């Protein structure tokens, strides 16, 4: 079945190529209708076409020549009616879809082309008739894959956000820009310094980690020391987001860019799924990072200290935890992970100075859905968001795909106000 479709497509491709050459070599000042009739790549000679005005006034009746072409010049621009006489077609040919009447419009000084797609008799509409259900499931499989792909990238970005939120209580609206930063840094090393993307990405992630460290050291940490409240910090982060985004615009420009390697990597078929090899590698890396960080947070001393700081910084300090140090580590990792997410996003899609901002809402949705401040929550929530966005397009128009995911967010929170993995606080 599948094989047949592919073969047929290849055949069509050939057909198109054959058609492409001479079709529009007509005279520049042409006013009328024309067309070419072909059956399986071979011109159809002697097919009869009757051209009438819209009202039915006969204009001309023509027969296709040896190249299969026909041409009717008209005096007045306007709507015309073209009828192909099916009887004049070769025995084995028929018009696909069966409709042999066309109603094209002729514009002043221009020729309009009229198309009759011919097919061997009985070759029932292969194009659409390929069994709706199998297409549905193939599409569903592809979309599920896309959902996982997107979900994992979101999860990575969400993890960075969740780490920082969890430790400092900062709702960081500039997180999208940290994602962008990673992508742009990798771009700079990749294009600017001519490194291969892989080392470029590694360096970018490291640099972003260092920048994350410095950001806390020189900025957020200072604010904390001044006793700036979390709401003020949140608004400050909006300022930071604006600042960074437009700095990117100045240095990177407003256009879309791609990395030097792996762009438009041709897809490979895996059963019903068609995907680029880079997607699989990226997903593997993402999953590994997510799980390692998640476990580290649960098991390592620093991870626990991070959660302790999140709960109560003063008490953490009283327990001998160097709060500033823990927060700095988190910022370093958070920045690096966000950057990695950026590289992955840039790899999977393209780079733009607003790329992070564009996914910020999804990141927030993922974090919230999973339960704020829980590492694995971010993973679960983001996967749900990613899957919903993609799979929902089976039923809703793609332009509304975010609606599905956001609606799910609202519904889940209705049932579990604390998020999927979140815990309710006790009262009293």
């Amino acid at each position, binding site marked *: 079945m599948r094989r047949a479709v592919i073969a047929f497509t290849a055949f069509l491709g050939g057909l198109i190529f054959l058609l492409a050459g001479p079709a529009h070599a007509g005279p520049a000042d042409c006013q009328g209708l024309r067309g070419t009739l072909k059956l399986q790549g071979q011109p159809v000679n002697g097919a009869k076409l009757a051209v009438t005005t819209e009202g039915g006034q006969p204009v001309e009746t023509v027969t296709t020549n040896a190249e299969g072409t026909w041409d009717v010049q008209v005096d007045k621009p306007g709507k015309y009616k073209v009828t192909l006489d099916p009887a004049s077609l070769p025995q084995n040919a028929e018009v696909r879809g069966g409709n042999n009447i066309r109603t094209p419009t002729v514009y002043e000084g221009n020729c309009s082309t009229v198309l009759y797609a011919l097919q061997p008799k009985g070759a029932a509409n292969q194009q659409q008739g390929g069994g709706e259900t199998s297409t549905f499931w193939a599409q569903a499989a592809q979309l599920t894959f896309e959902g996982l792909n997107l979900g994992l990238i979101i999860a990575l970005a969400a993890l960075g956000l969740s780490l920082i939120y969890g430790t400092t*209580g900062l*709702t960081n*609206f500039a997180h999208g820009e940290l994602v962008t930063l990673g992508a742009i840094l990798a771009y700079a090393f990749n294009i600017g310094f001519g490194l291969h993307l892989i080392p470029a990405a590694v360096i970018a992630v490291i640099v972003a980690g260092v920048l994350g460290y410095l950001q806390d050291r020189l900025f957020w940490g200072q*604010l904390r020391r*001044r*006793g*700036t*409240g*979390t*709401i*003020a910090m949140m*608004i*400050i982060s*909006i*300022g*930071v*987001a*604006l*600042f*960074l*985004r*437009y*700095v990117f*615009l*100045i240095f990177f420009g407003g256009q879309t860019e791609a990395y030097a390697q792996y762009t438009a990597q041709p897809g490979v078929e895996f059963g019903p799924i068609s995907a680029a090899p880079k997607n699989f590698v990226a997903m593997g890396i993402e999953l590994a990072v997510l799980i390692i960080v998640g476990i580290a947070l649960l098991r390592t001393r620093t991870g626990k200290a991070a959660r302790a700081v999140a709960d*109560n910084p003063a008490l953490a300090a009283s327990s001998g935890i160097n709060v500033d140090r823990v927060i700095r580590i988190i910022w370093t990792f958070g920045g690096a992970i966000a950057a990695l997410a950026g590289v992955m996003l840039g790899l999977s899609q393209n780079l733009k100075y607003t790329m992070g901002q564009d996914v910020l*809402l999804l990141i*927030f*949705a993922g*974090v*919230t859905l999973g339960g*704020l401040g829980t590492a694995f929550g971010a993973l679960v929530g983001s996967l749900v968001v990613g899957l919903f966005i993609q799979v929902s397009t089976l039923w809703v*128009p793609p*332009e*509304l795909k*975010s*609606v599905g995911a*956001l*609606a799910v*967010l*609202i519904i889940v*929170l*209705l049932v579990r*106000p*604390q*998020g999927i993995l979140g815990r309710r606080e006790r*009262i*009293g």
Partner: protein
Amino acid sequence: MDWITILSTTIKAAVGVETVLYAIGAIGLNVHFGYTGLLNFGQAAFMGVAGYGLAVTVTVMGLPFWVGIFVGLAAAVVLAILLGIPTLKLRADYLAIVTIAAAEIVRLIFRSVQFKSVFGGSDGQRGFSDGFYALNPFPEGEYGFNLGPVPLLFGHRTMWVLTVGWVLIALFSFVVYLLMKSPWGRVLKAIREDEDAVRSLGKSVFSYKMQALVLGGVIGCFGGFIYGLGYASVQPDVFGTETTFYMYTMLILGGAARVLGPVLGSMIFWVLLVLFYNVMTEAVAAGYITFLDTNQVGAMRWILVGLGLILLLIYRPQGILGDKREIAIDARR
């Protein structure tokens, strides 16, 4: 450099249509966030449903202007209730995300091709403001005065919008002032601090939150009307998350939970934005700034706005009118 133009546009921006509409939206937000502690990040949606309510009623259904205003108001109330029922039981930060999500859903529906015949797709709707301008008491011409060499003049249409707008601002500020001094406002502020405590004192938290949500939404929806009427058009992307962000910025800038905070914040925001931009374009054009070209000035202004916002909050975290003591109380305990 053309200082006269710079001054003129800057001063005009302090009272201009943008200032008015953002101020109104921010007043509503102040009721939500400043007083009740509802982190509503969907304020733009309230403006949106109002603007579209008006636009669709007049252009698509062909009904009179006043009916449009009524429909817009009703739409805001309905949105508040629809949004409130599922969300008001959520913790503040969850509420924030859900309201963003809801607002995005509203915006995406406005801009979708599916409903293009009703909402006009991404271009929105226009041609519904005639009813409003028909009421314009100002005859055609320019109004204002010259401040020395600086002309501060508005056309009659703008003048009419501004008059209505500032009257609304005064009205809403007064209402908020009255309410927040009253026991009703006290309950809201208490909810902001600790819902359970308020519950234990016999107040229906849900009902008060809902009232606050509706009130803030209805106030905010007038911002949507002013937008629609001021520009004689509505477009979906104007009612995106950014708009809400800017309103928050203004609110915090002016001072949350202060009656005039949002108004002052909005004025400062737009003045700074316009001033930065004008000065920089002029400076680039005149060759004083050489490291930027004109294309980058637009970006530079947002950089400066971001920077200004950061600095303001660092040095005055409570906002211009805010109370330092309130900030010093750690919200965590």
